């Protein structure tokens, strides 16, 4: 039996040299090819690191992505990218503006999936920014309806998911951090994600974070995916009681390290969290990962957090004689 498989949510921090290179490239001082070489190096380094510490399901680390919505929009016809808007504090990002009918230019992330999968024998996750989040994080000047926009994205992202499967992806994750933005739109999200995952034949995961989980709980089992990936260490450990009363019918990837804290959680603390999760979930349906993408941490912090996470999962497996 496979038990307590470890993985990552998606993004991993970019090394300093890549951050500098991206800044240069955005000013036109570095060619696309030169940037690509550095992105490949950073991706290869992260794959090697994940292999070395024994992560079961690696990610490519999204070294080539800026904002998760903008990256997809840049590769979809019918969009332009806006000027900067503030996220919080001194952090800013650019948003897609939909100015015309959305159409796929061709596969978006398949090339990078192939590159990363070529470097490891473990199954690399295919990563898609979900249709609801793409809609919610874009300005719409064309469709005039959130539902229409969302479903238009869903149809394109289904094509992307199919292309990932054809390229060999066995696991496809749909990221929907905007999931709990507007509760009344949860049926729309379910419908849109269903379009993306329909007939895929791979394992499918839905990741979300920073939500009012209690309010969306009743939708968990309705989400058309095999696995839910939830932030549990930062805000969700108290959800466990509710899962005890109302069991999840899907697999769960259980976030055990806080991605917004500089503090590297000690192995013992992570072990405790995994032990708590084990009181509710079957070990073969319980995956262990960080709360969210680690891109806002330094490379060193992210590596230390992942190392401790893998060590904790291993220790729990041994303690429970799970292989």
């Amino acid at each position: 039996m496979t038990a307590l498989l470890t993985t990552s949510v998606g993004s991993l921090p970019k090394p300093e040299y890549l951050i500098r290179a991206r800044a240069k490239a955005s000013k036109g001082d570095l060619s696309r090819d030169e940037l690509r070489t550095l992105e490949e190096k950073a991706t290869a380094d992260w794959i090697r690191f994940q292999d070395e510490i024994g992560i079961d399901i690696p990610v490519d680390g999204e070294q080539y992505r800026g904002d998760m919505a903008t990256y997809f929009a840049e590769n979809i016809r019918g969009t332009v990218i806006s000027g900067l808007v503030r996220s919080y504090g001194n952090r800013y990002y650019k948003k897609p503006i939909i100015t015309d009918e959305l159409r796929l230019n061709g596969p978006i992330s398949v090339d990078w999936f192939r590159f990363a999968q070529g470097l490891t024998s473990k199954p690399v996750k295919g990563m898609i920014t979900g249709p609801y989040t793409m809609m919610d994080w874009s300005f719409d000047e064309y469709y005039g309806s959130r539902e229409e926009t969302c479903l238009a994205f869903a149809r394109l992202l289904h094509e992307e998911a199919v292309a990932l499967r054809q390229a060999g992806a066995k696991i496809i994750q749909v990221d929907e951090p905007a999931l709990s933005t507007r509760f009344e739109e949860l049926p729309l999200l379910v419908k849109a994600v269903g379009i993306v995952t329909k007939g895929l034949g791979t394992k499918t995961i839905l990741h979300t974070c920073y939500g009012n989980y209690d309010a969306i709980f009743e939708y968990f089992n309705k989400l058309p995916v095999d696995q839910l990936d939830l932030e549990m260490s930062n805000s969700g450990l108290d959800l466990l009681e509710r899962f005890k009363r109302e069991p999840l019918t899907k697999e769960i990837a259980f976030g055990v390290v806080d991605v917004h804290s500089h503090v590297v959680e000690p192995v013992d603390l992570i072990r405790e969290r995994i032990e708590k999760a084990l009181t509710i979930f079957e070990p073969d349906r319980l995956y262990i990962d960080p709360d969210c993408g680690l891109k806002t941490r330094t490379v060193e912090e992210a590596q230390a957090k992942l190392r401790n996470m893998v060590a904790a999962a291993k220790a729990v497996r041994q303690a429970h004689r799970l292989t």
Partner: protein
Amino acid sequence: MVRTTVVGTYPRIGDTFEEQSLRRAIGRFDKGEIDASQLQAAEREVTKAVLREQNDAGIDVVTDGQISWYDSQSHIARKIRSVEITGLARYFDTNTYYRQPLVSGPVAWDGPILEDEWTFAQSVSTAPVKAVLTGPFTLASLALDTHYGNKEKLAADLASALAEETSALVKAGARHIQIDEPALTLHPKEVRLALEGLETIAARRGSATLTLFTYFGEVSKILKDLESSPADLLGLDLVQGAKTWDVLAKSGSDKPLVLGVIDARNTGREDPKDVAKRVLTLDGKVDLRSSYLSPSNGLEFLPRDKAREKLRILVDAAKHAGVGP
């Protein structure tokens, strides 16, 4: 023309190198390369530019753009007694975050919060600058509370603190005070609590014009309650709160309004003539001569160039509407 105003926030950076001075200054401040007074100087340069953009567009009542605010909650709450500022929490449905205030004892006014910022802004603006305060109901709704264990009591004490602040702002010369209560769109059933807080604040406003503003949604079911509030003007988000428009169109309003008709959450350009035509359908039901047009909420959710464009659309729409004082 109908008069125009804005709601509060304005983009603090744009896409040119010059327009990103504050982003660089905050980065340098965080690294310890410049001190607090240098950071404040950078904020004030941007505040000046933001006021110039509003003045140039011809907005009748402007704001300082809340350029120095980390967010709508912590900027006010951090100066209130017994409040500390904690981690990030999601701010309504905006894909932005605020630092959540934590109330661990009795709250009270500890001294001026916005006075310096308002005084500076007014000194560099040709139009009257409205002082904008986050309302006690919204502060109480979005904070963590380990002391009161009771939102009513917390909101009441916050209202007393904000009444002191209002009085200080009026003494400093502010003629327009706005209380933002976006949480009413989430919790319309608690409208009584919000109105009680507003009573406390209104008692200290002197001769200043007091606006109550709700945004990020509709308030159709509580519109009549809001009209009964002691505010002089009622600000409404009529974009996300399109349902409020339906009620207004049917029953009008006894109170002059700030009609938030320009979409501050989307880059799409409204046709000013269409906006004016729509606003004029309210003539006779709403006292447009005493009312204002505005964006639906703060303009900070748009890129700077689009925010500027929205100001122009707003003023054009007001011109086309024609009526006014």
